[in-house]
């Protein structure tokens, strides 16, 4: 068959009715916080749209993002792969391997040149022509540049692909960089998180298919998912406002579900949907499970070294006590010297005064 199946046709081929297709659109629209009318618009667009080709490249990563994606519940990964997209290449999920898989990717790219979506997981090492990460004898750097050339848009999933993540953490031995540092001539949508929430990944893909490039924040993240801080939407926020904080992970405050700010929660400076969409079919999220937010969807979160330090404390280099001690000694030396100079001047003035003849 020459003609590509539309998304609706793909749904129907899987034995699903138009009604379930509309339901899928309604659920996805609500996930994207779109107004009710937009669900119908989404259904109309997706019904007529041929299933877009998606190429999923994995570089320096732990496959955690893929693991998360396979646990997507709305829409499910099966929905996504079998109905909404044509997954042409993914070295974790595909049956093909080796040269055959690479060849299939090239064919898919040629067929959908300029129209396919490239999803990238993992950071990319730049030095030595990308020699620190190779797949099928080709460096990650070369693969990305090659595949990105024909992509309509690139979705960088996970903090590694979005901001470098742990791969780019100090001392960054492989010189890893995020996708946006290498691809400048194509729209790059960052979907950070370690890993990102599955529904955020699938929702971003479906949103892009329906309405094109979503509104992004200054870190190129879809605003619909990264528009609010976790703190803003946290169910423990009221305890923060009341000044009720857990002091340790097993004290009365922790058992009462009080705010975890004192235990280093980074919710106030972390933009993500954890507190609203949650994980594992909306079961829970880290704060609900009793641990503060690590800020994993923000750049450089590994290097901050303050997972368990409150946000209002300093991030000291070395020992702050020693530094302040040295400063105090330096201050005392300058102050003492200033006082000595002043005393010397006083002595001189007194001597001059004493040497003056009386009455003058």
């Amino acid at each position, binding site marked *: 068959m020459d003609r590509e199946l539309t998304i609706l046709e793909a749904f129907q081929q899987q034995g699903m009715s138009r009604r379930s297709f509309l339901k899928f659109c309604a659920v996805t629209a609500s996930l994207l916080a779109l107004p009710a009318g937009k669900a119908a618009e989404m259904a109309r667009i997706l019904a007529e749209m041929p299933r877009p080709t998606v190429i999923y490249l994995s570089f320096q990563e732990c496959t955690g993002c893929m693991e998360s994606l396979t646990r997507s519940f709305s829409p499910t990964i099966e929905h996504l792969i079998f109905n909404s997209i044509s997954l042409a290449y993914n070295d974790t999920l595909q049956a093909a391997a080796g040269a055959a898989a690479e060849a299939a990717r090239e064919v898919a790219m040629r067929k959908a040149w300029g129209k396919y979506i490239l999803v990238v997981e993992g950071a990319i090492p730049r030095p030595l022509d990308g020699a620190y990460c190779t797949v099928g004898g080709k460096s990650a750097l070369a693969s990305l540049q090659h595949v990105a050339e024909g992509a309509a848009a690139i979705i960088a999933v996970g903090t590694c692909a979005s901001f470098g993540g742990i791969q780019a953490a100090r001392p960054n031995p492989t010189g890893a960089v995020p996708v946006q540092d290498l691809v400048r001539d194509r729209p790059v949508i960052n979907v950070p998180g370690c890993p990102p929430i599955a529904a955020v990944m699938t929702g971003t893909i479906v949103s892009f298919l329906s309405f094109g490039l979503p509104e992004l924040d200054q870190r190129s993240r879809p605003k619909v998912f990264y528009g609010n801080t976790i703190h803003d939407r946290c169910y423990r926020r009221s305890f923060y406002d009341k*000044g009720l904080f857990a002091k340790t992970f097993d004290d009365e405050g922790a058992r009462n579900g009080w705010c975890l700010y004192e235990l280093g929660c980074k919710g106030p*400076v972390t933009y993500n949907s954890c507190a609203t969409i949650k994980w594992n079919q909306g079961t829970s999220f880290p704060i609900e499970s009793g641990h503060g937010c690590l800020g994993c969807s923000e750049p450089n979160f590994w290097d901050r070294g303050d997972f368990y330090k409150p946000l209002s404390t*300093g*991030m000291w280099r070395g020992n*702050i006590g020693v530094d302040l001690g040295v400063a105090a000694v330096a201050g005392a030396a300058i102050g003492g010297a*200033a006082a000595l100079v002043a005393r010397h001047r006083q002595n001189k003035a007194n001597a001059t005064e004493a040497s003056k003849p009386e009455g003058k």
Partner: protein
Amino acid sequence: MDLLTFARGPALQWALMIFVAGTVWRLLGILLLRRKPDYTEPRNTGTWRGALKLIVTRSWPKREFWARTGFDQTLGYIFHFGLAIIIFGFVPHILFIKSLTGLSWPGLPSGIVYVVGAITAATLVAVLVRRINNPVKRLLSNFDDYFSWLVTITPVFTGLLAVEHLGARYEVLLGIHILSVCVLLVWLPFSKLMHVFLLFISRGTTGALFARKGAST
């Protein structure tokens, strides 16, 4: 390095070091000065009592001058108490102090601190208006007064913006807030803001001198 990391890291660390060095420098520079010898016979031996008495009496408005100075003094008390409540009552600030000194105490509900912050900021604005409108005060004021006012109100104002998420993203506002505190810390020892440390020392010294001379305070 993003703004917040810079503010919480090197900026705050250097500001604290300058603050400590500057404060010790100024205090020792003053305390180690030679005092003028006083050959008169003391009329009173309770100089410490005199020092403490003057600290209290000079902190309270004299009834004779109340009509003229009462309003200004009230404003002064409001913003000074406000600043104390904000600095020592807001939990994130207590955590900062704890991380440096190990000392901590229970904090106030955030809502109360926000209200106090707003009152303090408004009072500081009123104080500036009074300074500008009063010809005598205006004549007596110099750059130190105006800049000290600015570095005092900026942390209050940026702190309020940060908690209310007004004007920019929270992490940017928090970074600016911490940087404004850094400016305050650097400026404090070398300006009139040094009265934080010198106020009671200078009043106590005057009180002790008055007590020695037998002057009424």
